């Protein structure tokens, strides 16, 4: 019986990669749990509240989007709208061309991964440099991130040291401190030479139009201290209704993502720099990106738009821990990716319809989610959609015959009795693929179909 693509990927993953993914996700998850439960009387109340705040926001985008647009414009920013990935890339290019700009430094943004911005800009002769250490390493290796928060969770220091050597960033040295110092030295001159700093947004307040950005390395701050033009790429679901909601969400984001009370740099950007400030962008552009989000909003899986990209569901997920991020063949891996990626894929849904199957439905993702997204329910809805659209699903046993059996009590009882044959026939000879797949790894208990009913009748007749 063929297994699912993600299972095959996991089987072929190097033991070294699996061990490092497993170890770091487990450590972060355990620290996260300790931090939340040590510090808050009832972290689950906080998660539920955060979920309600975000759910309100996404269900009121029709009023909040115009509101945020007005606030941003009032703050001196220019607002742009992009329906598609292509449109978003072109909007960035237009802004750059209007300024005669050729060099862009970018902070980590998942939307830019989604729309493949760096690749697009390079094709138009623009240098687009990743500045987050992990993303920078991904970029020089022409690789893909394998985790939302920890892009190079799949790489070890030796591979990184070899890449640095190859790129002329110094002789081979795999000390993480040295690697970091070399990137610091190289990148700071790139910031200073760049024309434009590009960031994402973790939250946008509809009340004040403030864009909130969190980073640990300070790279987004450097982008906004060194360059004269700021472009923020923002998914339309990033809106929160009020500034006060930010305190709730920020408390959860750092703890959930990296087990920190607060991420090192939390920036609240309300517009271009003030006149007295010598450093920073004189021009600010905010590009709101749809790229499939309105389709998700229209679906029965709209709760996934609450996601604040903390990565906690990846860290706790037993499947992610075994398979790592590239197994998901998309920008968003893990449980959130298994929901979001097929939805954002639009017409390419069938190509990613196996992702929602990559779950034992254990529910750990929902239990850790800072915005309480019912991920298992959404995975189930997408499995149902795949079935309705007749997407083939290797290894999934057909259910029609079983359903017939399980809705006819006489047939069911006959099957219970007939199953006894299994005790007398070698398992290998029973031509049921699911049974074979089971028995390849596990012993099957003895068939005792009908025994309980017999016992109960005897007990009752006494």
């Amino acid at each position, binding site marked *: 019986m063929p297994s699912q693509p993600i299972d095959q990927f996991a089987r072929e993953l190097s033991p070294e990669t699996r061990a490092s993914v497993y170890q770091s996700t487990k450590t972060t998850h355990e620290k996260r749990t300790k931090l939340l439960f040590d510090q808050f009387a009832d972290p689950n109340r906080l998660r539920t509240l955060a979920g309600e705040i975000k759910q309100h926001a996404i269900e009121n985008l029709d009023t909040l989007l115009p509101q945020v647009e007005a606030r941003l414009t009032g703050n001196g920013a220019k607002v742009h709208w992009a329906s598609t990935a292509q449109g978003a890339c072109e909007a960035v290019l237009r802004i750059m061309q209007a300024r005669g700009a050729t060099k862009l430094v970018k902070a980590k943004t998942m939307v830019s991964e989604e729309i493949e911005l760096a690749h697009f800009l390079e094709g138009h002769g623009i240098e687009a440099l990743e500045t987050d250490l992990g993303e920078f390493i991904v970029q020089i290796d022409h690789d893909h991130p394998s985790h939302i928060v920890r892009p190079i969770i799949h790489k070890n220091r030796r591979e990184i040291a070899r890449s640095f050597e190859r790129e002329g960033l110094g002789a081979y040295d795999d000390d993480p401190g040295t690697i970091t110092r070399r990137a610091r030295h190289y990148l700071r001159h790139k910031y200073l030479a760049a024309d434009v700093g590009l960031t994402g947004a973790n939250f946008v307040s509809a009340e004040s139009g403030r864009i909130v950005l969190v980073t640990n390395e300070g790279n987004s701050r450097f982008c906004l201290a060194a360059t004269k033009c700021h472009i923020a790429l923002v998914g339309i679901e990033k809106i929160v209704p009020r500034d006060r909601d930010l305190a709730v969400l920020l408390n959860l984001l750092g703890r959930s993502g990296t087990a920190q009370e607060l991420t090192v740099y939390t920036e609240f950007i309300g517009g271009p720099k003030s006149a007295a400030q010598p450093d920073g962008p004189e021009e600010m552009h905010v590009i709101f990106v749809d790229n499939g989000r309105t389709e998700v909003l229209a679906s029965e899986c709209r709760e996934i738009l609450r996601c604040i990209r903390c990565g906690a569901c990846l860290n706790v997920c037993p499947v992610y821990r075994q398979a790592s991020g590239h197994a998901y063949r998309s920008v968003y891996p893990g449980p959130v990716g298994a929901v979001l990626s097929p939805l954002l894929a639009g017409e390419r849904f069938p190509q990613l319809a196996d992702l929602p199957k990559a779950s034992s439905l254990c529910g750990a993702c929902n239990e850790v989610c800072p915005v309480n997204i019912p991920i298992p329910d959404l995975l189930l809805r997408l499995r149902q959609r795949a079935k309705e659209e007749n997407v083939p699903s290797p290894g999934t046993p057909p259910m029609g015959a079983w*359903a017939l059996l399980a809705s006819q009590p006489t047939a069911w009882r006959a099957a219970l009795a007939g199953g006894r044959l299994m005790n007398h026939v070698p398992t290998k000879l029973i031509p049921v693929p*699911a049974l074979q797949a089971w028995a390849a790894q596990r012993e099957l208990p003895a068939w005792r179909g009908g025994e309980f009913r017999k016992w109960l009748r005897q007990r009752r007749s006494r």
Partner: protein
Amino acid sequence: MLNSERSPITGKRVQLMATCLCDAFYDDVAAATVEVLEHLGVEVGFPESQTCCGQPAFNGGDWAASRKVVRHTVRTFAGDEPVVVPSGSCAAMLFHGAVLEFERERDLPEVEALGRRTWELADFIVNGLGVSSWEGRFEATVAFHRSCHSRGTASGEAALTLLRSVPGLRIVEFGEGEQCCGFGGTFSVSFPNISAAMGTLKLEHVRAALPDVFVSADMSCLMHLGGLAAREGKPIRIRHLAQVLRDALKGGIRE
């Protein structure tokens, strides 16, 4: 809570849903459930036409097939008595999963009504009947696997409350207790490699705690883990919660 709205318990009669796994493999678990409930003075009815809760097809995405089975289950367990299930997984299917797949169906109210009176065994004993301590004796060190379907319900805590109260029984913690065993229904056969890796990890943690017995309120997890352990040539002694409670009344572990 996934099952916060519940019909109040009136009277001392319940209907037992034995589950398909007990019907086919683990008759002693269903028998123990009956003995435990009867010990508490509960009269146990067993609708003979019962089959399965419908979960395999639900999880597989074939909701039409699953609904067929759920409709049969709703008919089978008619009435207003509580339905008690020795499985957190099947119970959750009835009070949560079935409701999801019937969202757009006209008979949703009937499905919801069944969900409101469906109880996982430990939850029923502790939170339904208000019984929080157990008598007898069970001299053993027990590792308790809090199966995933107890997340978001009171079942895990209820089972631990009962186990902790059994004279002679000691609970040992083991590493990564919140992690899934890797069963996951059809997941165990369509993701054989990941499923087995998850199970092996769980077994390593459990074995390191040196329990005499490995206990859960779900036979599906135990079937998977017990089967893996046996194939490794290092079998573990698995018991359902109901068996432990029943055996405690009879003086301890029975082989």
